């Protein structure tokens, strides 16, 4: 969806945000599968990127997604203490916290990024967690960043 479309939709109060979801294949990605298999519906805003572990999601990738115009970025990993690689989800949480601090200094709402912990068996919770995040991002409105330097979305 182009920037202009998003802004236009926001004016029409039908803003559909673009949310990137970095999902661990051992938990959140499988939970999304389970939700799909169970015919549960969740927001089409969510663009899932499968990772071997959320420990692979570094701060730069989260920031780049927001720089390129994503309205929100979630990192979804295993429940605390259950990471297949011992502490990948803990590291991811620290990184999301770090990015939130960066966003504050940059001038973008820190709520545009979130760490979510979920297990592979939690299809319904996947839907609930991401619905809540998408609603939060919707309330914030379209990201003022167009994804192209020097091309701020004016009036949004």
């Amino acid at each position, binding site marked *: 969806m182009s920037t202009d479309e998003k802004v236009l939709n926001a004016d029409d109060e039908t803003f559909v945000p673009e949310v990137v979801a970095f999902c661990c294949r051992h938990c959140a990605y499988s939970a999304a599968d389970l939700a799909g298999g169970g015919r549960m519906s969740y927001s089409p805003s969510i663009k899932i990127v499968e990772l071997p572990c959320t420990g692979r999601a570094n*701060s730069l990738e989260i*920031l*780049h997604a927001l*720089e390129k115009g994503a309205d929100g970025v979630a990192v979804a990993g295993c429940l605390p203490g259950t990471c297949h690689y011992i502490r990948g989800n803990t590291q991811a949480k620290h990184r999301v916290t770090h990015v939130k601090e960066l966003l504050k*200094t940059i*001038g973008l709402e820190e709520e545009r990024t979130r760490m979510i912990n979920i297990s592979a068996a939690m299809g319904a919770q996947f839907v609930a967690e991401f619905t809540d995040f998408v609603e939060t991002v919707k309330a914030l409105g379209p990201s003022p*960043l167009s994804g192209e*330097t020097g*091309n*701020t979305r004016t009036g949004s």
Partner: protein
Amino acid sequence: MIVAEQKPLNEIKSMLKGYNKVLAVGCGTCVAVCFAGGKQEVGLLSASLRMSTDLDGEAVNVDEAIVQRQCEKEYNAPLEAELEQYDAILSLGCGVGVQSLAQQFPGKRILPALNTKFMGYPAEHGVWEDRCQGCGNCVLHLTGGVCPVSRCPKSLFNGPCGGSQDGICEVNQEAECAWHVICENQLKLGLFDEMMEVQPAKDWSSARDGGHRRIVREDVRIPDEEKA
């Protein structure tokens, strides 16, 4: 290694005022190891600057580069070809790296993105401690391998000041008293008697107090006639 940390984003933005096209140059040695100026940090700072200046309505175009060792001109030389297109260079090197770029590329605005702090020891992942001030006259053989210059806030040479309590420094409650550790180490080494010898006042002329320092090693110098 040399330990540094990034300046606040707003301070860097102030330095960049008036420049439209900037090259952020990191260093792949000390500041990469302490997560201040390596490839990842260049990426994070550059993205932060692009986003923040974009939001301010005064977008600055920030490109990224990294050299293996910014303090040596041979590593920086490949940058020269592309510098013409940039209004300013934002160095994520230590103070030596910034000055190397400034000396190598006179006439080009070189700005420091980091504050260089000390020569430090990585106490744990994400924690660095001052271990050496480069005083130019090492006394670690007399002090149980603990530097009283960098680790004692008063740089004392003849025992603790008397203000420490339970092995904790009176100046910094998060730091061990350096002299407490020195005494313990000397005891373990069976060298405590050496502590009875009074050390004379330190000659600080070998440190920065003696003026700008320089080392010349004729044995490794390349003779003028052989230089390219």
